[in-house]
């Protein structure tokens, strides 16, 4: 596809369950980012990948959150033992080079609701 693709678009889960969110970046984009968008909180940085490595995981809120990227392409964000405060829209973005000047192209997001 032409843009960043995320799935699922909506996920409702029960507290304590694990969830996986997937991101398929634009082909050829080496940099991939995960952000969390909450009401009143703006966009919160979670993790950044350059290729398959994650030089910056500083934004992951707790050890229940993890992410991986394989083949320099698809990335998965996993949230274990979900809590109600994890409810948010999770946005993925990719960039051709990352770093200075690189425009980020965002997906439509995965809306997570934890009951």
């Amino acid at each position: 596809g032409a843009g960043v693709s995320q799935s699922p678009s909506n996920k409702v889960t029960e507290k304590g369950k694990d969830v996986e969110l997937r991101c398929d970046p634009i082909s050829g984009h080496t940099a991939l980012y995960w952000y969390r968008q909450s009401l009143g909180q703006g966009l919160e940085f979670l993790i950044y990948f350059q290729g398959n490595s994650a030089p910056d995981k500083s934004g992951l809120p707790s050890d229940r959150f993890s992410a991986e990227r394989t083949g320099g392409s698809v990335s998965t964000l996993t949230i274990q033992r979900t809590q109600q405060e994890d409810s948010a829209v999770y946005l993925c973005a990719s960039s051709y080079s990352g770093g200075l000047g690189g425009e980020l192209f965002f997906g439509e997001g995965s809306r997570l609701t934890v009951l």
Partner: protein
Amino acid sequence: AQRVTQPEKLLSVFKGAPVELKCNYSYSGSPELFWYVQYSRQRLQLLLRHISRESIKGFTADLNKGETSFHLKKPFAQEEDSAMYYCALIHDYKLSFGAGTTVTVRA
């Protein structure tokens, strides 16, 4: 530390009136700043970047290093400008975003 501050959560203006969205930043080096916009039911997308010094959809933003500001302005707002606007700063190879300002342009 909060790097990007957008003091207004909501901004309502009438069509044809000027609109200004405030953004202040905190950064010790030479800043690189952006405005991103999210229209209803659309993806977040780049509106403009300060290094381009361009006007997009009638919007301009000037970097003021003395005031550490990057306010977004448009002299005559249109109804299609209604959206959520985020100011963002590049640092450490990532974008830090402000909390966003929701703009409503009334007819």
